């Protein structure tokens, strides 16, 4: 089982460092953020370091108007501004599939990821298009000799997860494909601001979807663009999850792929605390330190030394790079202890949630004030979601 880096803009040496330290098991490259002339060497570098490699073709960006598609127009399967008319008919669908998978086959990747489109409802025409692309990908994949295994990609708007009836019908359809060996699942978030929050009913259904594919049907499932939630998905049966270095690589939002007015502010430095099951601001870590509770929130990973060895968190050399690498180290320490027994895994997570809630309460009582993105709200949502999930999965 594994944890991957979700690649995006500005990779610098982070991937190499994380692979060297063993805190990640591979990389899912995003075509949008890598020049086509560089992608092959990127793939090779990861492979040389023993990591698994995937290319997310990010075909779905072609149906976003106006798209923020960066390097995608250089990729042979990509065309800007595709509309629903571009997906009518078997010939067009097969053409998209062939162009995308043929390109991936030129790279030394471990799995092929099928082209897909984003949908916000299981009953929408875009969901049908996504299913048609997946079905055609299975057909084309079957015709290629010695191809790597194929994962069917789905980018599912979290709003779609509100309807269990529609989700059930979707799962009936997908699991009826006998040739399917796995899926690359991304949940597109409704709220573009970064946090660990996930509305409990939707999260319960997201867990159910992952559980049905991974645990019940034995498929390989990779959850892309995740953060701490990736640990929940792994607990219910996904094979791996991917988390990136920036907030937009830890939760998927259509906004990230839509042209925006230039501007925005630099993200503030964060520290990932496994005891809190959250990434908190460095300034919040400073407050915790000043209240004498630093040890209680540390993740216990090698990069913590940067903070522990300094006089205080804010006076340390903590920077974006250390924050990113420490994030992966922290997630990995939990991920590597997840087993195959779903109920047991969830019990472990539930204990962690209770402990995190108690810790938040203790810190709040000590006077530590958390910002809206660093607070404990997600813990209650997760707890409710796990309860609901256990009920619907009879666990």
């Amino acid at each position, binding site marked *: 089982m594994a944890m991957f880096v979700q690649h995006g803009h500005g990779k610098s040496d982070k991937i190499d460092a994380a692979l060297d330290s063993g805190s990640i098991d591979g990389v899912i490259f995003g075509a949008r953020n890598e020049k086509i002339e560089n992608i092959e060497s990127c793939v090779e570098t990861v492979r040389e370091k023993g990591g698994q490699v995937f290319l997310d073709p990010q075909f779905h960006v072609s149906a976003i108007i106006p798209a923020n598609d960066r390097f995608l127009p250089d990729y042979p399967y990509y065309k800007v501004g595709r509309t629903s008319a571009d997906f009518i008919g078997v010939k067009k669908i097969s053409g998209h599939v062939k162009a995308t998978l043929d390109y991936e086959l030129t790279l030394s990747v471990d799995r092929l990821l099928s082209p897909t489109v984003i949908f916000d409802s299981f009953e929408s025409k875009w969901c049908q298009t996504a299913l048609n692309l997946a079905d055609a990908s299975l057909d084309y994949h079957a015709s290629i000799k010695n191809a790597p295994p194929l994962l069917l990609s789905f980018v599912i708007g979290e709003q779609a997860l509100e309807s269990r009836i529609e989700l*059930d*019908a979707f799962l009936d*359809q997908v699991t*009826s494909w006998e040739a399917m060996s796995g899926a690359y699942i991304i949940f597109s978030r409704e709220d573009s601001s970064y946090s660990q929050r996930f509305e409990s009913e939707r999260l319960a259904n997201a867990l159910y979807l992952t559980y049905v594919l991974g645990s019940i049907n034995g498929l390989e499932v990779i959850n892309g663009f995740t953060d701490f939630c990736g640990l929940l998905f792994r607990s219910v049966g996904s094979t791996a999850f991917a988390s990136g270095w920036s907030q937009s690589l830890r939760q998927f939002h259509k906004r990230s792929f839509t042209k925006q007015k230039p501007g925005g502010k630099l993200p503030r430095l964060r520290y990932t605390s496994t005891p809190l099951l959250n990434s908190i601001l460095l300034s919040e870590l400073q407050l915790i330190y000043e209240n004498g509770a630093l040890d209680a929130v540390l993740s216990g990973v090698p990069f913590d030394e940067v903070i522990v060895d300094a006089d205080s968190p804010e006076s340390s050399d903590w920077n974006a790079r250390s924050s990113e690498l420490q994030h992966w180290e922290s997630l990995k320490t939990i991920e590597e202890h997840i087993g195959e027994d779903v109920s047991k895994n969830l019990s472990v997570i539930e204990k962690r949630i209770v402990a995190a809630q108690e810790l938040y309460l203790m810190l709040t009582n000590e006077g530590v004030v958390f910002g809206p993105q660093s607070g404990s709200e997600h813990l209650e949502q997760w707890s409710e979601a796990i309860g609901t999930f256990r009920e619907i999965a009879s666990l």
Partner: protein
Amino acid sequence: MPLPNITEGDIKALIPEIKSAALIGHGGQKVVFRAIYNDQPIALKFALLSDTFNPENEDIDETVLRAQRETQIMQECTSPHMVKLGPIGLATACTADQNVLYFSEEFIDGQALKEVLKNEGPMQTDDVVRLGLHMCSAIADLWSLGKIHRDIKPGNIMRRADGTGYVLLDAGLAFDVAGESISAGFSVGTMAYFSPEQFDYTNRRTMDFRSDIFSLGVTLYEAATGQHPFFSPTTSAPHLFSKITKHNPAPPSSLNAAIPVALDNVILRMLGKSPHLRYRRIDQLREALAQVQEVR
């Protein structure tokens, strides 16, 4: 549905090669005779057609079309656990002032599973597994033709007297996956083996071989415990619907301690409320059943 009123004399007049014919049973639409044809026993089935039936238009008559599908399936299936078409092909006739259709099947010398369970009680685990494996063969054979049986139940399974196993009968409801959902017009007893998706009048749910896996799961549950997981003589149709679609039955081992947990798990998974909770490939079910035998 009314059944044809046919006598041995009517049959001999209709098919002179028949030496003798004895009524052995009747289903929802057909009466069945054990007949001797060219010195071999066959099962001869008759169904009633409407008074207005016109042989010129038999290709639009629903009863004839259904029988055509049934005989075609029997012709195409190769599994030893699926009943075969007999020497008399599908034909229509007017006999004893009734329009009828008839065809023959191989005669299975044995006992319906329904009777076996009634007379002998719950089956041993090895027999349950064997029954499951044989029905997997029949379901796989049908599915290779893109068909689902839709009426797997103890009354439609025969145990051969020669000990060679079980045979699935009556593909009369078998349909391809595009077939309409059908739960209207059936007795509660028949619907007791329907999958949850067979009750879906909106046809939003996928119908594939996993529907047959559910029905087989109900059958195996009954074979292993002697009790139906959802139905009792006092169960009304609405209650049955609710139980099949919502109620999780007790593990079979809670009713029969001799049943191993491995078989519990297989049967309960077959009874998943949604197709996506059951086995995704028939081979997976076969392997799971084979493992039950291995661990014993």
